[in-house]
Each structure stands twice: as structure tokens, then as C-alpha cells.
């Protein structure tokens, strides 16, 4: 059975999440603060960690904990789940090696879907790709099962949210995806400027591999489009 660690200082939320995930067949342990969680991680690593950024008085406790957890394991999937939704927090969290960043607006079914997707990704990374799950658009290659993206044969390190956005755009090249559609596809509820900053981050990640990358076009007032 897969073990999920929830580090959350609000007991009601922690208990609700734990219960929902148990229903999905996971073994769940909840921790209210950083030292407690770290002690448990040292004894035994979880298969996935769900971390709140603010832990009681420790405003950035989640960030510190993530750094410590990454030191213990480079591969364990980590999801930030926070009431904070500023670009600064999102970028800081993802830089520390988190696999996804969710605000607490996300519903439990959305959360469960992400957790399942992350487990699938880590599970299938070693298995050979099945051709029916591959989306290829020119130099872009998306593995929908394993949630990986390659550009010109090189891996683009996308978070789950970012992957789903690229997937939503690339599935129907030339079609304008408005912000609502992107949010639906990425299972997030955010405002316009967050979508804008997600798109910006995605472009930057592709440009890191290919400086001439310009496939994601902005259609002002409407949304975004994958250009061939």
C-alpha cells in the first residue's frame, strides 16, 4: 500500500484530506509540524508528501521541510498545498524540487487525481512507453501516461499543472484555448494573471532548451494557442 505523508497545521484540513485519501486506498500519516514530520521521514520515507508552506508559527516551515526531504530522497513526489498563491511562493516551492503546487482551492477529487497521476509518473518512468499514450507535435513529444514532455528529444521538466496546460494546448494545435478551458484541463482554479505566469514559466522552460521556441502564442483577449 502506498504511504502518503500530510504535513498540515490545520487539524481539520489534515483530517479531511487523510480521510479522503484513505478512501482512495492510501495509507496516510498526518503531521502538524516540521520536527515531527522530519523525525518520521528519517525513520521511513513516504511514497508521496503533501506539504503546507506555513506550519503554525513557522511561516516557511514547508519550504525548509521540502529541502530536508529532498536531501533524504531525490525522487519522492512532493506537492505543495497552501493558502498562499503568490507567484513568489509558487516559484520558490517549485525551485525546491516540488512536483506540483496547489492552492487550497483545489477540491479533493482534483487532489486525488493529481496524486494518482504523480504515482503513475514515478511508476512508469522506467517502463517502455506505449505508443497510444504519446502525443507528438513536431519537435514536441508528450507522454500522457508518464506525464513527461520532450522538446527536440530533450526532457522538459514540467510540473503536473504545466504538463496539463501544454497537453491541453498541443492536443488541438491552432485552436485558441481560453483561460477557463486551461484551468479546467489543469484542474486548477486561479485568476487570469496566474494563468499568464504559468504560461510564462512554461515558455521559459522550453526556451532553456531551445532559445527560438515560440510555439505558445498569446491571442490577446482570448487565450493561448499552440502554433505549428
Amino acid at each position, binding site marked *: 500500500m502506498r504511504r502518503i505523508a500530510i504535513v498540515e497545521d*490545520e487539524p*481539520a*484540513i489534515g483530517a*479531511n*484530506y487523510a*480521510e*479522503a485519501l484513505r*478512501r482512495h486506498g492510501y495509507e496516510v500519516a498526518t503531521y502538524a509540524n516540521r520536527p515531527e514530520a522530519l523525525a518520521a521521514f528519517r525513520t521511513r520515507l513516504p511514497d508521496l508528501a503533501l506539504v503546507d508552506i506555513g506550519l503554525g508559527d513557522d511561516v516557511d516551515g514547508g519550504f525548509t521541510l521540502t529541502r530536508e526531504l529532498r536531501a533524504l530522497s531525490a525522487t519522492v513526489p512532493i506537492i505543495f498545498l497552501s*493558502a*498562499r*498563491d*503568490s*507567484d*513568489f511562493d509558487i516559484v520558490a516551492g517549485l525551485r525546491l524540487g516540488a512536483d506540483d503546487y496547489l*492552492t*487550497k*482551492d483545489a*477540491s*479533493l*477529487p482534483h487532489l486525488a487525481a493529481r496524486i494518482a497521476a504523480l504515482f503513475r509518473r514515478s511508476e512508469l518512468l522506467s517502463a517502455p512507453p506505449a505508443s497510444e499514450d504519446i502525443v507528438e507535435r513536431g519537435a514536441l513529444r508528450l507522454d500522457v501516461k508518464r506525464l513527461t514532455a520532450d522538446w527536440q528529444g530533450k526532457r522538459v521538466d514540467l510540473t503536473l499543472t504545466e504538463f496539463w496546460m501544454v497537453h491541453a494546448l498541443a492536443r488541438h494545435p491552432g485552436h485558441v484555448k*481560453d483561460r477557463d478551458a486551461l484551468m479546467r484541463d489543469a484542474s486548477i*482554479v*486561479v*485568476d*487570469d*494573471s*496566474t494563468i*499568464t*505566469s504559468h504560461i510564462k514559466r512554461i515558455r521559459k522552460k522550453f526556451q532553456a532548451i531551445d532559445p527560438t521556441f515560440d510555439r505558445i502564442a*498569446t*491571442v*490577446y*483577449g*482570448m*487565450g493561448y494557442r499552440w502554433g505549428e
Partner: protein
Amino acid sequence: MKLPRIALGIRAQLLLVLTVFLALPWLGLSYVRELERFLRDAQERTLAGTAQAVATALHDRPRLFATPPDPIASFARERADDRASGASLPPSASPEIAQIIEGLSRTTARIWVIDRQGVVLARAGSLFPPASPSPPESTWGRVRRATVGRLYQAVLDQPSDDFSDDAATQGAPHGRDVEGALGGILTTDRRPTSDGKAVIVSAAHPIWVGDEVRGVVVAEQTGNAVLAERNRAFERLFNIVLAVLLVGSLALTAYATWLSSRIRRLRDDAERAIDEQGRVRAPLASSGAGDEIGDLSRSFSSVLARLSEYASYQEKMASRLSHELRTPIAVVRSSLDNLKASPLPAEARVYMARAQEGLARLTQILTRMSEAARLEQSLSDVERVRFDLVPVVTGCVEGIRLVYPEARIACAVPPETVEIDGAPDLIAQMLDKLLANAVEFAAGSAIAVRVEAASSSVAIAVDNDGPLLPEGMEGRLFESMVSVRAAAGGNEPHLGLGLYIARVIAQFHGGTVAAANKADGSGVVVTVTLPRLA
């Protein structure tokens, strides 16, 4: 009753206060008058002393008064320089007496010795001072005489040697003093000359022979010496007062100018610190001066700082509120999600659906509330690019047409490219807010979007024929959480953040946004003005 307000600057007020010191010359004048009286008394006493001394020399010498006078002999002794009218003066009749009093002729007094019948026995001295060449006048003296000297001449009696000597026409003195002395009493008198040009002060002393008054000694002098002394004192005093007043008012004027310039600067700074909408534009640099104006500047500065803190608190309130509410809402949401997953009776599902619908709206409100704050945070690392504004505007209009198919939106853009420096995403976000706002307010009427390019700026005007803005709201509309909607209708929450976001974006691009009722009263026009690149 209300007095009319007279606007007086600090300088004018200080100068007005300074007029109090104009009393100083008046004080000086009365002081000088006192001095003059004192001097006159002294002069009278001196004359009385002279008369007494001469009389003392003549007392109890009956022989001197026995001899009949010999006018011819004494006439020869007349002083040659007795200028006024020496020829007509009554001559000395008694050479002996003339000899006794001759030594007194060098004084500025004129001594008469007369007998009971008014016959002049002897006379010495003159009322007129000896003529002496006046020293050459310096340039400064000439200037002074031409300026303040004229004033003094107008105000003060000037001593004059050009008076008519009454003795020349009326003979020996026969005034009140002589009568008093003949009665045996030392008497002084003061009388103007017949032409009024001078005052003659005289003292008469009786000459006793035994118990009998045989003659009178009269000592006469003009009041000119006292007058000259008084005038000199007054001039000196007045010169000093004038100089002090002049220097004082110059210094005070300079001081007041300095003060009022500092106050004016403070006022300008304070006015500049707050823009038309009452927002603190920039903190006021507080002055380091230790006086009250420095104090005022510091307290202005701290008031402004507090005001701007309060304004930023207000602007951040939305995001703080949304942040604080997120956690309890997450509790509610996760609880509802769990509840949904468990078997529920049919009627409970209805309530569940309503609760989740309400929660969705709440979430939308929170998202809107944090949008403004996130936008402000993200502005610091926005990449600026040079881009053409026209396709962004037409794209946004297209987008709005898709979202609101029933809205009638006209769009007029210039044929050329209009390049600006900034972030097209932000401009699109701003236009979305403005257009969505216009669509809601137009309520089915036509909306017109115009891009009007000038040489160095470009204006985007969005006008609709909806209800007019209430008086006084034109500026406040763009503040955080200010809305003019009568009531929040429909499902869309109205937090009054849309136009605030538009303002933040316009300001980021170095532009402005303003809303106004159209001149003909047919609707409202919102205009964004941005600097255009050459």
C-alpha cells in the same frame, strides 16, 4: 456679521506690526521737548545769575548814579561790529558803569544798566553772535541736509540770526522784568521779537543803594542757543531711530521672506505629495530644521506616511482577507468533499449541491480579491517589450465579443502601428476589465472602443451609453474596492477591483486612466492614456 477677509502675507503682516515702532520718533520728540524746557530754565537761571552778579558789583555805589549821563562819551564806546542797528541803539550814559561791565561784552548776552527813569547808563555785549566762517561741508553732510535735513526744517523751529532787534526801535528794555526789578524783585521774562523770528530771554535785577532801588541790570539773550541745542539733540535721536527702523525693517522683511518661502515650499511639497484622487504619491522629505516649521514639516511627513500606510493597508486588505479566508474555506470544502463521497440520503444531496454552489461563488470572490494583490507583486519582474497596441486592442474586443455575443461593440483603430513599451499581457488584462465593465454597464446599448494615437501618446477610449456616474465618483472609481453598482446582481461578485486593476496597469505603463460622463450626458467614457514610443 462677517468681516471681509483680507489676504495678507507674512511679510505684510510683519511690516504692519512694525508700524508700532513709528511711535519711537514721537517718544523722542517729547523727550527732546522736556530737554528743551530744562535748557530754557537753565538759560534763565544763568541770565538771572549774570544780572545778579553785575548788580552786586553796582550795589551801594550812589556816586555812579549821581552823575548825569554823558551820551557823547559813551557813544564812542559803541562796538563797531554791533551789526543790527548799532547807530540807533541808545548809548551808554555812564562811562564808569560801562567800564565795569565791559568785561562782560564777550559773552553772548547783552547787558543793560538803566536807572529808574529808563535811561540807559551802560550797555555791553550783543544779541548777535560774532560772524565766523562756516566750515566746508562734506558730501555726506550735503546729502543729509538735502534729505532728512529738509524734514527737520519742516518740523522744527530753526534758530535764525536774522531777527529784528527791538532795542533799535524801542530803546532801552522796559518789559515785565524791568518793572519787576524796579519793584525790587529779580524777574525773568521771555518775549518774541516783534517780527517773531526769535525769542528774547531776559532777566532783570535791581541795584540797591541803601534801601532804595536806583537802577536795574538787564541781561538779555536770544533763545537760539537752546533751540540749536534742542534741534541737534532731536536730529541725532531721530537719525538713530530712523537707521534702526530702516535696518530693522530690512532684516524683518528678509526674515519674513525666508519664513514664507519655507512655508510655501512646505505647502508645495504637501500638495505635490497627494494626487487629485487623494492618494499619497510620494513621501514628503521631512525637514531637519529645529523650529516650528521644521516641526510642521516633520508632522506633515509622518501624517502622509501614516496616510499612505493606511491606503496600502486598504489596498492589501482584499488580498489579506482572501488569504485569511482560504484556510477555513478549505476546511469547509474538504469536509463537503468527504461528505459527498459517503452515502447520503436523497434530500441531503440537494443541500449538498447548494452548499457546493455557494462555496464555488465564495472561491471566485476570493480569487478576484487576490488578483489585484498578485498583479502588484508580479509587476516588479514583468519584462517590458516594444509592441503594437492595435492588435492587442482588436484581439481583446474579439474576445469580449465571444464572451458576450449579445453586446454591440464598435472598434475604431488607426491604420498605422502604435508601438508602446510594456507588457501586452497586462494591457490585455486591463482591456478585459474595462470592456467587461463597459458591457455590464451598457446593459444592451452600444459600446465604442477607439484608439486615438497622437505623436507621443495614445488614448484608448471605451464609451458606453449606460447610466451616468454619480457626482464625485469619477476619481474614486479606480480605488480598491470601490464600486458604483447599486446592488450586486447575478452571479458575478462586484468587489470594485476591476477598475483598480486597470489603474495599476495603466500606471505601470506610465499612463493614466480616467472615467467621465460624456458631455452630452448620453453615457460614460473611460479613457486610458499611455505614452507612445516614437
